[in-house]
């Protein structure tokens, strides 16, 4: 079960850094880092896993000093977080290996958005010339893929550095799509905030709404009614199935298997229609709110389970065929390998991490809602780490998701109470909520004052995992790119913020 409150400890800068490293050295996972401007200081908050929980470790840096010894210099997985903090606050982590702009390339003298600060943020004008080129080595040139890409994709620019065919390095530029969504949370009520959370990473709307709601529910010290808890499991697992089918479709598309693309596109559409029938929204939006669920569910749990079983039966037949199509498997096997050691050191999340030997899964390690009461059903991890292993992990998760939905539906048939939502009083304080999205663990660090959000930091799995792209192209060539990208199954909206 989720603890009733979040443990927050405060340190001075040097012991803060030491404490984080000590915990990571002792086997905990570094899960995120963010800054809150609280004039005249900036508060840095690191998120580190604990037993069935996520702890917050704070330190403060005076704004007029505006620098501190970099965490990334001793803990590489903090690198992107410190770049993001530098972009939004101007704080300089001294000793950072490469402090290029990540989400906001701004000229040195520009006013920055200052998340948490009560002064409104001025509109920004991006300046790409602030990003130094990297190109290293003889005969290497760069090919920009994006931000407008060939096909229906989210906007992102991959700057591929190549001597011709190999891909020694991929630069990742997400800033074109940066929406400044964190800052938008500030001042909203928690009931409005959950709607915005759904739009941080739209393909994982339910997981984001859950993680946000869990944080608020901790602050208000309430537990959603049992019916809502089991329906939340069903909605989250349907979302997982849809996302994994999307990955399957994109992998098949990369291999040019038109029939497989059509089949998995068809299955995905059927899942979205099922979500639509249940919630009125094809992405399950507007239904998960702090306290439970916002409105009555339109489909009986038994009927939903029957309809799902039929869809999954069709999926199974196509998966068997796809996984015996050698021209497809040849493209995935050994492609885009994520080394298990790197995965562990970085704390790779979700199916990407689980296909590289990690077993962390918020649903079973830090269970919430109905997951805390259902018998655990983790998909066994694999240590192979290539694109094929990632796809196989997703199949296993689809079958388990279907089984979880059946079990949750069985329990729901027995629940007599009609109640779907507990009242949420205006609350204050800080808390961290989480949920396991299809992409991996989503974290929300929420700070409220009298029922209004003062600061909200969504940390998507996409942001945490995307940096691994730097390391998975070794030995691969151009035509492997779409397989690797698809097998990660990340959302740029979630990564760009």
């Amino acid at each position: 079960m989720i603890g009733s409150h979040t443990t927050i400890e405060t340190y001075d800068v040097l012991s803060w850094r030491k404490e984080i490293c000590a915990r990571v050295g002792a086997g905990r996972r570094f899960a995120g880092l963010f800054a809150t401007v609280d004039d005249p200081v900036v508060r840095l908050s690191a998120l580190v896993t604990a037993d069935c929980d996520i702890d917050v470790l704070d330190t403060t840096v005076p704004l007029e000093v505006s620098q501190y010894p970099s965490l990334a210099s001793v803990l590489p997985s903090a690198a992107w977080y410190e770049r993001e903090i530098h972009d939004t606050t101007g704080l300089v982590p001294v000793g950072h290996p490469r402090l290029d702009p990540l989400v906001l390339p701004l000229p040195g003298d520009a006013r920055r958005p200052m998340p948490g600060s009560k002064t409104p943020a001025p509109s920004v004008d991006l300046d790409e010339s602030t990003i130094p080129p990297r190109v290293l080595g003889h005969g290497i040139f760069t090919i920009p893929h994006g931000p407008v890409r060939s096909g229906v994709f989210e906007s992102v620019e991959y700057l591929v550095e190549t001597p011709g065919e190999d891909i020694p390095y991929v630069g990742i530029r997400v800033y074109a799509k940066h929406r400044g969504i964190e800052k938008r949370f500030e001042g909203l009520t928690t009931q409005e905030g959950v709607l915005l959370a759904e739009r941080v990473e739209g393909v994982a709307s339910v997981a984001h709404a859950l993680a946000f709601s869990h944080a608020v529910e901790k602050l208000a010290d309430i537990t959603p009614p049992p019916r809502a808890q089991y329906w939340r499991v069903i909605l989250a697992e349907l979302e997982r199935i849809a996302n994994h089918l999307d990955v399957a479709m994109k992998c098949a598309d990369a291999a040019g298997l038109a029939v497989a693309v059509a089949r998995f596109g068809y299955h995905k559409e059927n899942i979205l229609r099922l979500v639509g029938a249940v919630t009125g929204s094809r992405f399950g939006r507007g239904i998960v709110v702090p306290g439970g669920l916002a409105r009555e569910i339109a489909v009986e749990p038994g009927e939903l389970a029957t309809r799902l079983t039929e869809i999954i039966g069709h999926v199974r037949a196509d998966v068997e065929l796809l996984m015996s199509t050698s021209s497809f498997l040849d493209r995935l096997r050994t492609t885009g390998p994520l080394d298990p050691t790197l995965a562990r050191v970085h704390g790779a999340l979700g199916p990407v991490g689980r296909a590289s030997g990690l077993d962390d899964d918020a649903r079973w390690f830090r269970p919430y809602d109905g997951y805390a009461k259902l018998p655990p059903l983790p998909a066994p991890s694999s240590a192979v780490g290539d694109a094929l292993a990632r796809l196989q992990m997703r199949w296993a998760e689809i079958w388990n998701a279907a089984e979880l939905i059946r079990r949750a539906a069985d329990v729901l048939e027995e629940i007599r109470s009609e109640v779907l939502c507990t009242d949420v009083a205006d609350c204050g304080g800080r808390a961290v909520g989480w949920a396991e999205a299809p992409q991996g663990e989503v974290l929300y660090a929420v700070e409220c004052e009298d029922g209004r959000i003062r600061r909200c930091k969504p940390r998507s799995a996409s942001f945490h995992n995307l940096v691994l792209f730097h390391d998975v192209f070794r030995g691969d060539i151009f035509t492997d790119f779409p397989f690797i990208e698809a097998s990660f199954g990340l959302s740029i909206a979630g990564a760009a913020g």
Partner: protein
Amino acid sequence: MPWISRGARVVTTRWPRRADQYADRFPATVSPTSAFASPEMAEVCPTGAIRVDDDQVRVDRGRCILCGRCVRHFPRHFRFTPGSEIARLARDALVVPELDKTDGAVRAVRDELSARTRALRRSVHIRHIDVGSDGADEWEVLALLNPIYDVHRLGIFFTASPRHADILLVTGVGTRGMREPLARTLDALPRPCVVIAAGTDAISGGLVHPTYATHGGIADLVPVDVWVPGSPPTPFSLLHGILLAIGRMSS
């Protein structure tokens, strides 16, 4: 070749030639059901889509994100409305009940657009561009190619190059970082061309706008011809918008 046996059964919709249950029944919009107006109605809406003026309550579908808060708080005065044919040719026409003045204006817009797209009517190529979506909009655009919607049957194709495109389909709130790429992409399209604002984010910025990094939708960045509401817009609504753009459907 075992794949050959797959998909022998036709799953494709006949819409728009024949009615489609899913298209007709999906609750793709919210409408006021009575003229009763109170200022509290506007307060429950997180995006300011509900306007109360002159004792008349109106819903601006270009701002509505379908969160259902109005339906929950005022079940007798608002309801989810089934039907996917919700794209419009003028921004004002997204307001329901319609403002009196829009009728004539829409007719003029339709005539101009119809003349412009006459040559494209039977076959069009679409270039999609994301200028700050939440990612869900791309799923719905991509769904148009799945066997259920299969837009190829209508002579509608997606193209990788803007140089081959007749329609620019824009999703997302309009980030400041995508302003230039959007302008350059539109420049690269041959004329005549049509711009579709797909989704509430693209129309007005939805719930995400305003922030330091967004424009409130794409209307200030490019000339928009067709407006498709929805958060995200459903595939049927997108298809309606596309057919509307090339004069093959009415709004």
